[in-house]
């Protein structure tokens, strides 16, 4: 093979691998990304049941009820709308009423959000960025509340 042919082979292989990578990325992006929604988004956009989403907001004060076998029910609110959440499992250390959290799961046909994971912020001083933005949007953000 001449130098030119070899280089073509090399470039061809490179482009081939690149094409495979692009195809993988595109197909994965279609199927496996999760959108973040505030409770108002869920109500307004009518997120269809079964779609995996992230739901973030504040845990509504007085809404937390614990059942048997580590079942927990609570409401996530952004001040405008509130969504009831069902969860079974261990809650993070900083899960408290009035705190900002992010949950991931699906909306059930009845409108209840079935969460399979609950994330709280790591530290007293920070709020999940998505939650802070969502609260700012709904006008329930108090400056100095969390920084």
């Amino acid at each position, binding site marked *: *093979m001449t*130098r030119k042919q*070899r280089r073509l*082979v*090399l470039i061809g*292989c*490179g482009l081939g*691998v*690149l094409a*495979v*990578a692009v195809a*993988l*990325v595109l*197909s*994965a*992006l279609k*199927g*496996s*990304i*999760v*959108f*973040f929604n505030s409770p108002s988004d869920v109500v307004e956009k009518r997120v269809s049941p079964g779609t995996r989403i*992230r739901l973030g907001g504040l845990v509504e004060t007085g809404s937390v009820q*614990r059942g048997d*076998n*580590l079942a927990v029910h609570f409401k996530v609110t952004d001040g405008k709308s509130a969504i009831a959440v069902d969860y079974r*499992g*261990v*809650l993070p*250390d*900083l899960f408290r009423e009035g705190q900002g959290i992010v949950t*991931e799961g699906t909306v059930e046909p009845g409108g209840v959000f079935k969460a399979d994971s609950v994330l709280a*912020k*790591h*530290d*007293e001083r*920070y709020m*999940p*960025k*998505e939650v802070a*933005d969502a609260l700012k949007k709904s006008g329930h953000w108090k400056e100095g509340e969390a920084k």
Partner: protein
Amino acid sequence: MIAEIGHYALVLALGLALIQAIVPVVGARLNDGTLMGVAETTALGQFIFVATAFAALTACYVFSDFSVANVFENSHSAMPLIYKFTSVWGNHEGSMLLWVLILSLFGASVAAFGSNLPAPLKANVLAVQSWIASAFYLFILVTSNPFLRLPDAPFEGRDLNPILQDIGLAIHPPLLYLGYVGFSISFSFAIAALIEGRIDAAWARWVRPWALAAWMCLTLGIAMGSYWAYYELGWGGFWFWDPVENASLMPWIAGTALLHSAVVMEKRNALKVWTILLAILTFSLSLIGTFLVRSGVLTSVHTFASDPTRGVFILAILVLFIGGALALYAWRAPLLKQGGLFAPISREGALVFNNLFLTAACATVFTGTLYPLALEALTGEKISVGAPFFNLTFGPLFVPLLLAVPFGPLMAWKRGDLLGVAQRLIGAAGLALVVIAVAFVLTQGGPVLAPFGIGLALFVMAGAVTDLIERVGLLRVPLPTALARARGLPRSAFGTTVAHFGLGVSLLGIVCASTWGAEKIVALKPKQTVSLRSYDLTFDGIVTRQGPNYRELAARFTVRQGGNAIGLMEPSKRTFPSRQSSTTEAALMTRGASQLYLSLGDMNDDGSIAVRLYHKPLVLLIWLGAVVMFLGGALSLSDRRLRIGAPRPAKAKPTMQPAE
């Protein structure tokens, strides 16, 4: 007073850096030895001043000087001494100071140990190193000064973020930074080569030890971070594909590619232009990692504070260095002479294969990490890209790479014999197939892909050993001959074997822990027992303790296997009053390379406590494999050829004196 000394020392370091950024380049242009020599003095001076600044900040922490804002924010007088040290870099300002400390340390090492470098190359390398340093000194002094005083000195500090009060954190950031910043040296070498417009095989010999050292530190740093997340965050996961983790993984992948392509360049004088590009990309990814973690665009435990001016400043540094480097590359790279030829099936070809797949895998991680940010900036839509995405993209690209790992070192340079190599790997492949079959039989109904993963891991490990056996001719020649040959092998050959073996070990751990783990989440009252696999854990009761700066609530469990007590586990929850926050401390019980993992959830009103119990088979292999890879790197680094650097022209042999 101490803080002011530190501040002043940092300003002096900036002054020296500015001199070093300009004078040596001029010297190299004019071929003036004195001007070029300036760089050595200033590089050492920079290191001394930055070390002074760092020592000053450390002193402020150790003496709990709360009049310094940074100490007030992140320390507490009751904190154990070790955490007073580690909290120096457990915050934004201090960690940036550590960053420049390591940068200046590397600069000083090039100045001190680079005596075999040609003077112009050395001058240019140190100058480029100093461009980076100047930018970061300026960044610290303008936006993140750790030495600022508070007008009224408070009586007590606000304590370090509790989850950072851990010994893992003491080691993780410095190692990670050694890796990140270590790649600045290969970057500087690449830029210096582009400035000079000249590059040869010797260049790769000079760059490889630095890149190797950086890669080793990064490997350990990532492993350490992953182990820390595993036991401290209480979820039992070892990798979350969190953007911050990806930020450290990307330079590691690119750095791995760089190490391999530098071999081709050193041995065969080929792939020069590509290696230069990789050197630039690796450090660019390190800078992007720093940007992602430090700018506040991501929310995580690593984002110590989000001040928009910092983000903009780092972004400017990023654009300047990455953009500048790539522009210089586009302009100068075509001038570099092309290297040697090789057939597609050859050692060079195998290393190109390695590079192709590594860079493609790196690109998918890059996309997955930055796509959500780009989408939010462009459309305001918020998404999260998690493990499923990376499993679907990173996974398929890494499998062919892992399959090819045993083939590479067995190929001959220039023109290889794929069939011959395959024949030599029959043993390794046979072993892998047997293991796959056994795994299938043992785990009927389990995850289908897991046995293949195990087989792949064993193939990589056995393949690494095969390479060594083939080289010394074990089983073919008498044992003493083989041993003699083994002694004659360069250490870098052992390094390759060990590092590839470590890769297999990590893979084995990852596959076993993530597919055959068992998990149970229950609420327990005292005296109740929970069983998982062959272990029975009885909840004995709760004890409360007072730590130095926290209160601890520990649950005591007796672990039994087959009726015999084999130990106690005490997971706990710590409450830190100074921050009104708490952490969960998981309890780990190691059985061989497997672990039982127990962490506490909430206390319920009826006196029961929620617990999470995991059995993680062979989980320790994940990190052990990383340590083995590190050792492989260390073996290779200790190779005499690398230490000495470029071959020097042989001195003329002294002529024999005629007998008188």
